[in-house]
């Protein structure tokens, strides 16, 4: 399954603003695929949001999910 990902903050310097990955079933396999493709990410702290909710643990993904990669917030 193909997953579209939106990227924010300093992660854009590394990944660009959008990313599409194939054969991703859940957020754990998403992280694994990202780390294979972008080894720099392994030592980078970031959060994953699925449908605007922060992911805790592993979540099964489906085609219509909105997946976002977000570094630590720095608003204000």
């Amino acid at each position, binding site marked *: 399954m193909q997953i579209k990902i*939106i990227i*924010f*903050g*300093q992660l854009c310097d590394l990944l660009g603003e959008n990313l599409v990955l194939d054969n991703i079933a859940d957020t754990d396999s998403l992280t694994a695929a990202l780390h294979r493709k972008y080894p720099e990410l392994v030592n980078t702290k970031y959060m994953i*949001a699925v449908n*605007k909710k922060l992911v805790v643990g592993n979540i099964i993904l489906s085609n219509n999910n909105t997946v*976002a990669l*977000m*570094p*630590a*917030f*720095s*608003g*204000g």
Partner: protein
Amino acid sequence: MILKKPKNIFVRGPVAASFIGASIQKHNTKTEIGGHSIFLGQVRADVIEEKKVVAIEYTAYEEMAMEQMHVIREEIFAKYQLSCMHIYHSLGKIAAGEICLFVFTSSPHRKAAIDACSEIVERIKTELPIWGKELFTDESHQWKVNK
């Protein structure tokens, strides 16, 4: 579940002093209010390794930020006896010295307004998906880290 549509807290560009003044003026009909508390975030010209920050460029995951702000808003209203709460956060390039965050709370007695305002500012900084990119004079950048 969100019943009301989340309010948009984002403004393009800096928050103008005249807008802040007008916001205060609008409350003169709400005579149950006894105190206002206002926090204004201003872009600071930090110097990092001899390079000066000239602006911060803010981006956000706007939809998620507005939903999260809606949750914060409801929790703050439940916790403090507030008459009103107004929040504006800038997006885009904000020059050093300009206002990028405006939090405005009002209550019948001062303590609720002051405490709520302070708590909202902290929660905005830690819970809203907003990012600041510090731009230097030589057009290089670094990403802001909240303390």
